[in-house]
């Protein structure tokens, strides 16, 4: 598989995420779409990193180049997990207050 395949997949996932965020009103769906965008970027990071690594080891078998991106992704996933817990907590609080998960009910924040 060439790098293009990964790029197309990542762009498709990201676009789905963006459209989902823009069009849906259910905050849980929006939240999932945000995660989708995040993971599209993660995927791209891993893909580029792997390609980089393959090219480097082909030139020099001992090279460790290209491994950083893959490790980096683990960090992103850990941080994303923490972020998800905060986001879910907000959603729970929102449901308790509005008895709804519809973001349009949140417009009362302006007053």
């Amino acid at each position, binding site marked *: 598989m060439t790098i293009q395949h990964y790029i197309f997949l990542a762009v498709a996932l990201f676009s789905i995420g963006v459209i989902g965020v823009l069009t849906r009103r259910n905050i849980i769906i929006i939240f999932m779409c945000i995660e989708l965008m995040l993971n599209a970027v993660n995927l791209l990071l891993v893909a580029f990193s792997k390609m980089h690594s393959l090219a480097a080891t082909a030139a020099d078998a001992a090279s460790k180049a290209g491994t950083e991106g893959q490790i980096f992704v683990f960090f992103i996933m850990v941080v994303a997990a923490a972020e998800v817990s905060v986001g879910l907590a907000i959603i729970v609080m929102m449901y308790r207050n509005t008895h709804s998960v519809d973001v349009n009910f949140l*417009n009362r924040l302006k007053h």
Partner: protein
Amino acid sequence: MSNLVYLVPLFPLIGFLINGLARNSLSKGMTSVIGSGVILASFVVSILLFLQVKEGNAVTVTLFDFINTGKLSIPFSFQVDQLSSIFLLVITGVGFLIHLYSTAYMHEESNAHFARYFAYLNLFVFSMLLLVMGGNYLIMFIGWEGVGLCSYLLIGYWFKNNDYSNAAKKAFIMNRIGDFGFLLALFWMIQHFGSLTFGEVFARADGMNMNDTVLVGITLLLFLGATGKSAQIPLYTWLPDAMAGPTPVSALIHAATMVTAGIYMIARSNILYTLAPVTQGVVAVIGLATAILAATIALKQNDIKKVLAYSTVSQLGYMFLGLGVGAYTGAVFHVMTHAFFKALLFLGAGSVIHAMHHEQDIRNMGGLKKHLPVTHWTFLIGCIAIAGIPPLSGFFSKDEILAAAFSANVVYWVIGVLGAVMTAFYMFRLYATTFLGKFRGTHEQEHHLHESPAAMTWPLIILAVLSVVAGFVGIPAVLGGSHELQQFLAPVFAGSVKLQEAHHLDHATEYILMGASVGAAALAILYAVSRFSKKPDLEEASGFGKLLQNKWYVDELYDAVIVKPLRGMSAFLNNVVEKLGIDGAVNGVGKLVHYGARQLRLLQSGQVGIYLLMMVIAAFVLFIIQLFVK
């Protein structure tokens, strides 16, 4: 002896601190003893110093490093040489007599105000001593500012009177204009000579060309300072108004000492001036113009102190004429004799005012001769001395200046003699109107007329004696003397004398000059006495006299040319620039932010979807932009 030098200014400072801090608990007797005693102590030390200097021991004493930064080093040092020792004697000597006189003159004041008066007076003497003892221009400047402050405080001593406070402010502000010039000159000296110490500055200036731009600039700026402090055109109008202060203050500050600070400063810097003949010309012309202008004004004044004030301005003009034509010794000589006879005249006027219960208008006096015998005789001596009749002191000093003026330019001499004749005339107009003829005051005043107490008459007598004999220290060669003062001061002016082309008048010319000026003055005296003793001019002046009485309308001119436009400009700046411009800009920024916020607030709809859409659009736009912008 150098360890005594610091004592001279220290005594008055102590007096100031005691009288100033303990003014609420000191009795008048204590205040008098402390206030006068410290000056007497300074006087004694000054005599010791003078005797040392006379033996040729001029000293410079450095007390501590005052300013030491980079290459510039200004020590806090005192210089006692021939010139400053003469001034020390005059300041502390005349100062002590006036302190003594004040103890009686100011007796009506309450204890605290009495002590406040003596505190100011002590502080003044302290500042004046700093001025003349300073070993560099900066110490001189500190004293210069100090005497200005004390002058302000003492003119406005009766501060409850609004006119008096205004006179004090006027004096202070006009002095500030001059001080500004002085300060600029100091900066220029630091920049050019890298020092403010007299010896170093003069040594470095000595090799410069005649009329070097820097020298002319510095000397002109210094002279601007002198015009403020010594009341010369164009800054002279504060001095007559300064008569609002108590009369002994007028005698000490506005006649004998402070106003001669400018002459001291120029005499001290004589090398710089000799090297800048352009400035010398300006000094001579300004001095002469002031002498003649003030003399004309004095002809028609009816306030006893105002006549003396204009006479002071006029005499200061003569001193500047002397400096301008290079007769430095003559100018210092005139400072000395003038200090004696003008202090005498002012104190005599104070005695008259005291006896007349604060009446100052000479039209309401007359015939005081028999009521105030001591005051009368001493005042008469003062008048003869200032009129320049030999052998009183004024003759010798004035003649020396006029002779030098004649050598420089005959026109100077002619105008100078004209001024001297006017001096004789207005002084004897004052004398005749006050002391001769019939008493014109109220019966009550006549009933209370009395000679002043001994504390006031003794200073008068001593000053009268000095006014008579002071001239003998400077008898010129033409009259068979050896001019001891000139020999004494020679080291100070040696550099200038070397540069000046020597011009000696032959004796015949000098006799003619003396005869002409003395004869004209004598005629003026006879005319004034015969005219005003019988029939003083009590009517309001008209025509040209009115112009003179109103002081050539110079105050009104300044008001119209400087004060009014300044007020107008201030009003414009306040109403237009400040209120419309600056306030408008400040308020405008506030309003703009307020308006913008009101409009931008509409974007905050609260719809999460719209926020997200905006965010995506913005991210997309940034993405596009970064494609094109590298």
